């Protein structure tokens, strides 16, 4: 077992895992006592960077930092994410009165401390005029003086604090909300007018006043219809595409009611009780429909803000060996290109030197690969910085648009994938419902015309038959569910995500980065505190992914003659020379899954390290997430089949799966093989949900019925997935599943209720029982009951306030809930209705 230390991260208060206490073992080497551990511990390098960045911004002594006073345990570990493209951010700038302004999605804003810190930007960055962060939509509105500061300065200020700006295209539109307000106002006034008719006013007793008020109501209904015009146009469009949208009967009813109400108004003579007028009903329905649409749209937009990501992983420009910068489209086959340190290659080619390459874009495995001279390199590979006096180059084999990566991206856009959309069950169900209602309305109309000889009853039937349950309750229920799930740290892009979450029979996991942490952490070491300091200082200069496990807070150690190459880093510290590189000791059994890095003492400034004495050993690795076993257990207990697909080596995958008690797994898979495995499952009639993270999971994401990605996933995979786990905790997935089940139960119940209501009311109106008064009372009552059903599940009030999209300022209890997800609450728990 890995020794666990019960310490919490100074920044985010998450438990620090793995690190660092290590007692003397069989080797008899020195051990580190708990007392000599650093007092500040971090769960990840992101937290460490953010903590020191924030501390450096205050004069106060440590401990009374306003940021942490405000945050009070609500922080989540930041993603030290890369900004997709500074150029894209620059493109989003607008100029106004010699000031630049921009609106960006700011990833990483979680709580009031975040809002406060980002709002401080005008004070902290010279030239920034105003900065406003919206906690519910993560939008940052900025204004700055381009003479004094630049996008780069702003990004450089935000990034260490753990916030990554992304360009955004979606904008909150005031127009829709204005329509909702106007239609509500019209509805209120139309209802006020109709009160007179309940009081007994009719054409029989006071024709003048009746006519005056009815025309007023008619004008209001006409204005309502005008506000509703976009919805009607959209409906006509979807009918042309041979679809039966949910709101078809309701819209037919509204339009028909409008025509017949005007018709009845004009044909009614003084002193006669004329036909019914439905103007108030029209206004109320339009207001309800517009409000529902606005609410669901806002929920979807806020969640979807981050989906507009840039597909380009490959840089636009590269450098020829002769030193000329060229655009990637100008690169020709056989060109010799420079492998710039830590930059991504633009095309496939052949290495001209030995080098270390990070191929995580393709394989999902972040451990670098050793590339020898003459080996293949691929677009998307990142060449790690290393000491190489003459530079590193590669010869281009194919043009960049023909590279393996470009072809993969192209296949994602192909119609084969775009058309193979899973048939939405909810849509199927609702179109069935629409058919039933239309047929029933038709039958009722025929009966009433034949037996009562009254044509006006048809309109009553159409209005009464309006399935508010479908047009209002269903979208509302899903929007509320998406809001609730978002509060648990899972962002859903579509209602389909909820359906599949609940219906899935098979859950397929990627291993690295999904079941495991995905980044390297110090799992233990045999070292003195002094040696740990030196190793930290040296590893700072390494671009090797393993170096992220070392503390980035290298203190005041003076380093000389730093030399970083592909095997390690060497430097002079004080009077001694040191080098970090792969350990030469036998790895103890407890650490056999990890990689050992040694700190060597060098004699006489040699850099080879062959004869150095190994002073300390550090065990670094990517361990299983601590909650993974519980999540898998809960899923299995729920009767789900769990699979693991990995691009990693057989023995490693086997080991992880043994720990998790998963029998079905595949290893060393290519992206295509992952996708075909899922396709086979689907061919057997299973509903497949996929959880992954890397670009290599993109095809699998497309193939699965729905896919979720974990925080820090590649932008491509993210853009294809239905959901994002925005916390570091896989347990949030179980929470999301629980809520999805509730949403679906609520929706089904609402549909059943709506159907019963429609049948009863249709029958009543067919025999002429429905008067305007009854209709006016029954309709809002039925809608109110439906809204109650859809918002039930806990106290209405709290749900209503919680479900406001993006209300994420969590209480301290919620912060605990994020750490300790609802393992105790079984996802099958029944929903109180």
């Amino acid at each position, binding site marked *: 077992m890995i020794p666990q230390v019960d310490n919490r991260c100074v920044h985010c208060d998450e438990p620090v895992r793995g690190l660092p206490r290590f007692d003397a073992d069989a080797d008899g080497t020195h051990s580190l006592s708990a007392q000599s551990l650093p007092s500040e511990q971090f769960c990840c390098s992101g937290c460490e*960077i953010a903590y*020191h*960045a*924030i501390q*450096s*911004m*205050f*004069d106060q002594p440590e401990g009374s930092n*306003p940021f942490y006073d*405000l945050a009070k345990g609500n922080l989540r570990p930041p993603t030290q994410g890369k900004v997709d493209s500074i150029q894209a951010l620059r493109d989003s700038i607008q100029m106004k009165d010699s000031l630049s302004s921009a609106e960006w999605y700011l990833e990483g804003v979680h*709580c*009031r*401390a975040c*809002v*406060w*810190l980002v*709002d*401080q930007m005008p*004070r*902290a*960055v*010279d030239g920034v005029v105003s900065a*406003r*962060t*919206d*906690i*519910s*939509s993560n*939008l940052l509105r900025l204004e700055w003086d381009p003479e004094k500061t630049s996008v780069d300065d702003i990004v*450089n*200020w935000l990034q*260490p*604090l753990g916030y990554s700006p992304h360009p955004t295209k979606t904008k*909150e539109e*005031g127009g829709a*909300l*204005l329509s909702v*307000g*106007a239609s509500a*106002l019209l509805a209120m*006034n139309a209802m*006020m007018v109709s009160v007179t008719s309940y009081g007994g006013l009719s054409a029989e007793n*006071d024709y*003048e*006043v009746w006519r*005056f008020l009815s025309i007023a109501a008619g004008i209001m209904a006409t204005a309502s219809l005008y506000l509703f015009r976009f919805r009607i146009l959209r409906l006509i469009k979807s009918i042309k595409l041979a679809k039966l949208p949910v709101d078809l009967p309701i819209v037919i009813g509204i339009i028909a009611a409008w025509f017949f109400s005007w018709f009845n108004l004009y044909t009614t003579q003084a002193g006669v009780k004329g036909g019914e007028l439905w103007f108030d009903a029209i206004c109320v329905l339009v207001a309800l429909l517009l409000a529902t649409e606005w609410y669901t749209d806002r929920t979807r937009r806020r969640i979807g803000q981050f989906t507009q990501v840039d597909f380009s992983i490959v840089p636009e420009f590269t450098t020829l060996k002769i030193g000329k910068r060229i655009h990637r489209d100008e690169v020709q086959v056989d060109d010799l290109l420079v492998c710039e340190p830590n930059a991504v290659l633009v095309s496939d080619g052949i290495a001209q030197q030995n080098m270390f390459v990070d191929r995580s874009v393709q394989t999902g495995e972040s451990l670098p690969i050793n590339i020898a001279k003459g080996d293949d390199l691929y677009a998307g590979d990142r060449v790690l910085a290393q000491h190489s006096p003459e530079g590193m180059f590669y010869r281009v084999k194919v043009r960049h648009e023909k590279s393996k990566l470009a072809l993969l991206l192209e296949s994602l856009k192909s119609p084969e994938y775009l058309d193979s959309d899973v048939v939405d069950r909810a849509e199927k169900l609702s179109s069935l419902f629409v058919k039933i209602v239309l047929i029933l309305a038709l039958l009722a109309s025929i009966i009433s015309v034949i037996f009562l000889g009254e044509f006006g009853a048809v309109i009553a039937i159409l209005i009464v038959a309006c399935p508010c349950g479908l047009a209002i309750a269903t979208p509302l229920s899903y929007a509320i569910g998406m809001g609730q799930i978002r509060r648990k740290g899972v962002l859903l892009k579509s209602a389909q995500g909820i359906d599949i979450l609940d219906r899935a029979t098979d859950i397929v996991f990627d291993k690295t980065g999904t079941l495991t942490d995905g980044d390297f952490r110090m799992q233990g070491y045999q070292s003195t505190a002094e040696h740990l300091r030196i190793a930290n200082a040296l590893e*700072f200069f390494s671009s090797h992914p393993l170096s992220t496990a070392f503390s*980035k*807070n*290298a*203190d005041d150690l003076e380093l000389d003659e730093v030399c970083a190459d592909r095997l390690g880093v060497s430097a002079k510290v004080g009077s001694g020379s040191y080098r970090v590189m792969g350990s030469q000791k036998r790895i103890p059994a407890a650490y056999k899954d990890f990689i050992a890095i040694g700190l060597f003492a060098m004699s006489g400034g040699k850099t080879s390290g062959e004869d150095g004495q190994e002073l300390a050993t550090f065990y670094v690795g990517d361990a299983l997430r601590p909650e993974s076993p519980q999540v898998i257990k809960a899923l299995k207990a729920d009767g789900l089949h769990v699979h693991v697909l990995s691009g990693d080596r057989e023995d490693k995958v086997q080991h992880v799966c043994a720990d998790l008690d998963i029998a079905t797994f595949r290893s060393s898979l290519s992206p295509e093989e992952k996708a075909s495995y899922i396709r086979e499952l689907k061919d057997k009639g299973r509903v497949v949900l996929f959880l992954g993270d890397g670009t290599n999971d993109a095809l699998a994401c497309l193939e699965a019925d729905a896919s979720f990605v974990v925080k820090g996933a590649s932008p491509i995979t993210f853009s294809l997935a239905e959901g994002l786990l925005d916390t570091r905790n896989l347990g949030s997935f179980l929470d999301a599943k629980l809520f999805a089940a509730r949403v679906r139960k609520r929706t089904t119940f609402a549909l059943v209720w709506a159907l019963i209501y429609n049948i009863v009311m249709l029958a009543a109106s067919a025999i002429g029982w429905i008067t305007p008064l009854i209709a006016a009372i029954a309709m809002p009552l039925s809608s109110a009951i439906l809204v109650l059903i859809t918002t039930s599940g806990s106290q209405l009030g709290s749900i209503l306030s919680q479900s*406001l999209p*993006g*209300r*994420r*300022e969590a209480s301290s209890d919620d912060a605990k809930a994020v750490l300790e997800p609802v393992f105790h609450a079984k996802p099958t728990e029944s929903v109180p209705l």
Partner: protein
Amino acid sequence: MTIIYILLPISLLLALGAGLAFRWAVNNQQFDDVDSPPIRMLSDGKVVRENSSPKTGEGE
């Protein structure tokens, strides 16, 4: 019934006023962000040092 000719314009004016007030509120982004202002209130008066750029330990 003549009272209606006085009451009606008054009620119309009131409705118009409410409508205009709502339009003003929407256009002034009063409903765009209803969650952040109550949070901001709690942190009033707390500030960072002027021109403080975050340091990452090594001047990254």
